[in-house]
């Protein structure tokens, strides 16, 4: 029972991380119908920048804030420079561009920082919390992960649901041409959406790095898990990304715990297949049209 409890806690912690990256994928997919395969790599790159800042004596929290800002700028620039010129062309083109960007970023990171794994500091202790005489598989850093991702999610939800900027962003994402006819400057809002996704990606990179082998490829598997979570959530819903990421995290934790960590990627694949067969449109798909 205590094993199950600890696997559950581990799954929640990892699931929140997958939720954050799933949110980044969702923000971009619902705005431009593109899966950004470079999202994880962008988070990796900004985390390397954070690593350099820390090495130069910048405090952790200053580096944290700076890297989120850099993630925003990188996401926005990716949209303006690489994705915008492909508008109106084959839907495959931007997908190929994001895969190309993934390869380029990992190559550049390897060339600059080397391919060997290195350490990255955590904001808080990674030792499990103790309750009475027992220690659980949930640390202060896991609490930080939980809070950081929830704050990001709530901020995004407030932006979308309670502000006119969010209304314009949703309208631009769902119906660009109609929004333009209503006076909405769609282009700048799409750029903003990619920027927000960049923040989520950078946050993911910072949260994953202390718990894994931090190197040019450490976000690849995280991207696969986040993609699984995003698909389970319906690919267009931020709340779906949160739930999908958590479900994925829990499943992978149970598979890794009970069956062996080597089976975790296969667990994600099986989960994805089951989810697609049971509910192809995802858990949080759009409402069905009323037929009259």
């Amino acid at each position, binding site marked *: 029972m205590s094993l199950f409890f600890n696997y559950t806690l581990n799954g929640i912690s990892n699931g929140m991380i997958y939720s954050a990256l799933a949110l980044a994928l969702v923000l971009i997919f619902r705005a431009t119908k593109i899966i950004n395969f470079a999202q994880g790599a962008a988070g990796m790159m900004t985390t390397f920048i954070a690593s350099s800042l820390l090495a130069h004596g910048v405090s952790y929290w200053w580096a944290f804030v700076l890297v989120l800002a850099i993630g925003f700028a990188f996401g926005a620039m990716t949209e303006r420079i690489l994705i915008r010129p492909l508008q109106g062309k084959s839907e495959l083109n931007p997908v190929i561009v994001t895969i190309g960007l993934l390869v380029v970023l990992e190559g550049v990171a390897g060339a600059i920082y080397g391919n060997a794994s290195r350490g990255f500091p955590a904001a808080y202790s990674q030792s499990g919390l103790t309750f009475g005489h027992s220690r659980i598989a949930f640390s202060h850093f896991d609490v930080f992960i939980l809070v950081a991702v929830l704050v990001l999610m709530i901020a995004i939800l407030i932006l979308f649901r309670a502000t*006119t900027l969010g*209304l*314009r962003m*949703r*309208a631009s994402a*769902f*119906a660009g*041409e*109609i*929004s*333009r*006819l*209503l*006076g*909405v*400057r*769609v282009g700048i809002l799409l750029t903003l959406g990619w920027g927000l996704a960049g923040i989520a990606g950078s946050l993911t990179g910072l949260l994953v790095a202390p718990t894994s082998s931090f190197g040019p490829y450490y976000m690849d598997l995280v991207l696969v898990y986040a993609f699984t979570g995003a698909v389970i959530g319906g690919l267009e819903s931020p709340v779906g990304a949160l739930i999908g990421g958590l479900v994925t995290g829990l499943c992978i934790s149970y598979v890794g715990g009970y069956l062996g960590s080597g089976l975790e990627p296969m667990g994600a694949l099986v989960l994805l297949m089951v989810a697609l067969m049971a509910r192809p449109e995802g858990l949080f798909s*759009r*409402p*069905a*049209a*009323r037929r*009259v």
Partner: protein
Amino acid sequence: MLEIKDLSVSYGAVRALRSVSFEAQPGSITAVLGANGAGKTTLLRTISGLVRPRTGSVHFNGEELLGRRVETIARQGVAHVPEGRGIIEELTVEENLRLATLWCLKRRERQTAIEEILELFPRLMGFRHRHASTLSGGERQMLVLGRALISRPRLLLLDEPSLGLAPLVTAQLMGLLRDHATGTDVTVVLVEQNARSALSVSQHAVVLNLGEVVVSSSAAEVAADEGLRHHYLGF
């Protein structure tokens, strides 16, 4: 006043509009009629900036619209209701209306304007917090018309507003359109396949055939010309 001069549009080798010229007066409805493929939708999309023409000019109240961005043209008071009920299905009815107020109304005026439109279309009142995807065809048309009117446009471009609607709903919409245009400074350009219905509410009519203006005259004259009606308008 809307002045269109010598407007030509091509899609590759296909010429959709050929030297189209006409004027539409404020306070009146100008019907643009013609068969499928006559160029009616292209004409509206060119006026609102969605399509770039090869040649010609589009002046509204003395200002050239061509070459400006779609959203800039919209912010000049041009409301384009596209063919196929251009609602945003993922937003609620109220959000669809609110979106059209953001650039033209002050924050405190927005809710009042939304209530006025919902009073104009009471059927939408009960659906205000529901997704627009759940609306029927007639309700969707009321929503897009309401959304166009809420921005208090000076030029209203309507593309096939009666498409797929029951005759009673069409008559209600046309009546509302006539009431809204008459005696105001709003210029209305109404693209319709339902020529009989469009001519009944319009003061002016432009008949297009294969991208060319066949006739530009008063709606009454077009309605009275049996040969023209039979040949180009199908009634």
